[in-house]
């Protein structure tokens, strides 16, 4: 049996139609049925059952912790949970068990959610297809010969396949929104600093942000309310109050202005049918009362280059701690410390991670720093200016989430540049720090297409409100991936 949405699961729990234990069992069974998707890479049935039983007891005694109480979820395999493995899809962390909880894990626990396990991802979140995982590639539930996007591909596939109603992912350059778009689910990247990064294994610290993937914008709103908030353990976490995001879902978009960045709607480099689906989505919002204007993000053509300079530079430094000295994989029979470093890292990291560490090391090297890293930071400032300018004309920006539908597994493995271009519409939100959401807006060749909306900093409410209004008027998000033959 497929898991239903978070809202429906709640309704079933509230009406007594199902218990948390039953929801958990259904999730675990479904995970097994869909093992070929390689969406979930580690489950914790016994611990999760105890937590589900506790949730059922709380429900019977009227002590519910939150709207998420008793709901099964998966965590992307880069958020640490005490006593559980966290691998980031990498051999180098195959033996690592965390002695502490990520802030989001604590918050999910406080909310009563039941973490059933870990979802597959590109190694260290470096990828757009979940093909670089040491567990093997995750597959798209809509077509198992195709990728599910990445790097939070396992989370998106798990929701799309009905394994869990909701999941957490992380988004560094589109890693929540792009797989959400390609799998036909809703994925939100919050404002940088909205959700604590404590316990999220860093890829690129100035870009990483945790967010929800679920069936609807409303479900994302519930999850975001649970995980957002200032955290003294993360210096980049914003000291802002957390609104009741679900309360913002009025269904009304009249008076709101949607900006279409003209640079994102040129036909070059984007599938025409994808563009048509996105245009149709925007037209739907227009007919619901939103105003549509054209805006410009003149520096957006530098975004991909800028992103891959900054992200790789930060990654090269963030991944230095995986050295085989204190935890994780250590090569055997090493001659000396340099040999230990070299071989542990050579054996532990996959090709894409190595490529990005090398790129990032180069970017920060003496003599290149000014030309690459500093220049990239300057472009980032210009991009912020572009967004400020654009948001003086509109409330949200609309673009395709990805330039095309899910491609076939292995299709881009030998062409990293083409793979990197999968993120062309998503990376700017990370560079600028603004929130973004992807909602299903149609299908091309039987595969989902995502509409991306980008909002002002800290204005997730407007994003969620528009996405929810869209979903009240459309049924793209209600389409289910086909059952395998």
């Amino acid at each position: 049996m497929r898991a239903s949405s978070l809202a429906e699961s709640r309704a079933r729990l509230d009406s007594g139609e199902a218990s948390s234990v039953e929801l958990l069992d259904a999730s675990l069974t479904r995970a097994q049925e869909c093992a070929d998707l390689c969406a979930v890479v580690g489950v914790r049935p016994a611990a999760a059952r105890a937590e589900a039983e506790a949730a059922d007891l709380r429900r019977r005694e009227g002590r519910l912790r939150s709207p998420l109480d008793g709901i099964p979820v998966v965590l992307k395999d880069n958020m640490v949970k005490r006593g559980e493995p966290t691998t980031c899809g990498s051999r180098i962390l195959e033996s690592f068990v965390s002695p502490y909880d990520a802030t989001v894990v604590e918050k999910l626990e406080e909310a009563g959610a039941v973490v059933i396990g870990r979802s597959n991802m590109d190694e260290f979140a470096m990828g757009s297809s979940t093909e670089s995982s040491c567990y093997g590639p995750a597959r798209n539930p809509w077509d198992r010969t195709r990728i599910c996007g990445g790097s939070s591909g396992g989370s998106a596939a798990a929701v799309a396949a009905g394994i869990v109603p909701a999941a957490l992912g992380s988004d560094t350059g589109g890693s929540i929104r792009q797989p959400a778009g390609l799998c036909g689910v809703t994925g939100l990247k919050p404002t940088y600093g909205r959700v604590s990064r404590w316990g999220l294994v860093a890829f690129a610290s100035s870009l990483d942000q945790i967010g929800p993937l679920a069936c609807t914008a409303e479900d994302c709103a519930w999850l975001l309310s649970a995980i957002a908030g200032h955290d003294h353990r993360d210096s980049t976490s914003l000291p802002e109050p957390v609104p009741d995001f679900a309360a913002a879902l009025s269904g009304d978009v009249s008076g709101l202005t949607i900006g279409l960045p003209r640079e994102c709607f040129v036909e070059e480099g984007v599938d025409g049918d994808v563009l048509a689906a996105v245009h149709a989505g925007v037209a739907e919002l227009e007919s619901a009362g939103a105003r549509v204007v054209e805006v410009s993000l003149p520096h957006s053509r530098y975004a991909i280059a800028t992103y891959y300079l900054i992200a790789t530079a930060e990654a090269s430094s963030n991944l230095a701690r995986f050295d085989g000295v204190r935890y994780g994989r250590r090569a055997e029979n090493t001659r000396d410390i340099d040999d230990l470093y070299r071989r542990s890292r050579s054996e532990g990291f996959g090709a894409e991670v190595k490529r990005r560490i090398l790129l990032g090391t180069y970017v920060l090297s003496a003599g290149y720093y000014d030309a690459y890293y500093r220049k990239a930071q300057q472009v980032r400032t210009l991009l912020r200016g572009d967004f400020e300018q654009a948001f003086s004309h509109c409330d949200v920006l609309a673009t395709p989430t990805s330039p095309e539908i899910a491609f076939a597994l292995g299709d881009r493995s030998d062409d990293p540049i083409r793979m990197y271009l999968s993120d062309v519409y998503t990376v700017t939100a990370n560079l600028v720090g603004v929130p973004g959401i992807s909602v299903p807006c149609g299908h091309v060749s039987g595969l989902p297409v995502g509409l991306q909306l980008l909002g002002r900093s800290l204005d997730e409410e407007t994003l969620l409100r528009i996405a929810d209004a869209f979903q009240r008027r459309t049924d793209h998000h209600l389409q289910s991936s086909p059952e395998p033959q």
Partner: protein
Amino acid sequence: MSRDGYEVVIGLEVHTHLATESKLFSPAPVRYGDPPNHDVSPVDLALPGVLPVLNEQVIDLAIRFGLAIHGEVNRRSIFARKNYFYPDLPKGYQISQFEEPVIIGGYVEINPGDDGSRRIGLTRAHLEEDAGKSIHDAAVAGADDSLIDLNRAGVPLLEIVSEPDLRSSEEAGAYLRALRSILRYIGVSHGDMEKGQFRCDANVSLRPRGEEQLGTRTETKNINSFSNVEAAIDAEVERQAEILDDGGDVVQATMAFDPVTRRTRVLRLKENSDDYRYFPDPDLVPLVISEAQIEQVRGSLPELPAAKRVRFQEDHGLAEGDAAILTASRMLADFYEEAVGATSQSATTVAKWVLRDLLRALKIRECEIEDAKVTPASLAALIDLVEAGRLTVKSAQELVAELVAEGGDPVALMSERGLEAVSDAGLIGSAVDEAIDAHPEVVSSFQEGDQKAINFLMGRVMQKTQGKANPGRVRELLLEKLS
């Protein structure tokens, strides 16, 4: 060329541990002597997913230092990552400050009151974290292994970089002493070199006297005592001078000083040096310091050594050299001032006792004033006893040593030990009579005009009374009886 033909140019980099309760970016405590890897948190271990959070305590300490050395407190400084692999550097990078340090400029005055009095310029001071320790000792780690202790990893450091203003190893030593004195005065660092809380790298170059252009410099790393700093500089100056004398070129290098052979040797050449790939740490926000914060710290800053020295000279009438010694340590200066306040005797009298007798007793016991049992009040009481004629200087000096070691009340000690000076005319009189009777030849030479002869007689009397007789009374009586 003779050594005098070269001018020595020295700049020092000092790493000093800041006196904080916890580490720079983690809540783990800063302690010395704990079992290995006892004082570590997930942050110090660089576990996956951890993040640094700045210890707010260091901000005030950095401001205190900046104000004390007349530097500029940067309103916005940036933490940067210095990337390199080393087993006792868990993250694979050290969080430091690079392009924007917290303190810019300033100076330290050396050899005050001396002909060699000079201001040594500071380039900058910045915050950074210390690394852990690697233990290669085969007896501990085994022949094939090394062990790592991360207790020190993440301990806050202030790196203080001087301008190349120092011209001799003596000046370098004087600079380090003055700097450490300031750090201790303002409570920024304990500066204990034995605990590795105060370490020094020395940049040394030579140039022919009169030459403007600086010579090629070397950097001698991690020197851990004042005397070794001076010895290392002397050794390096000698090495470079020999090279230059032979017509060679000094090669830019990192050096190590061996305190046993008292020589420096090349550790690695600079051209092979690492590229640290500094960049701003994206896990941390800029350190922003407000005017109000600076003013608040300024208000809480204690009187600094230089100001105190001038005050001791002008208000207490002390000689410049005496004032300089008393103010070298804040503890000693405070002790002296409290003692002055506890007695009606003059400040110069108290200074005499502190400088002559207390410092000597401390030196013999090899302890600092803060570790001694003597209190300012007890020293003051002792001085009062001497001035009142109840205790001889000799007895008092013995008691100073005892107060330093054991503490106690001088009046009680005096009676316990039976040291009270004898002023009783009868007792002294009989000893005087005895001395006169026993040495008629000395009496005659005194009466023939040898004034010094009386000293011999005094000595006999003092001996007879076991040093307890009030010397003034003895002299009076002798003069009375001999005239």
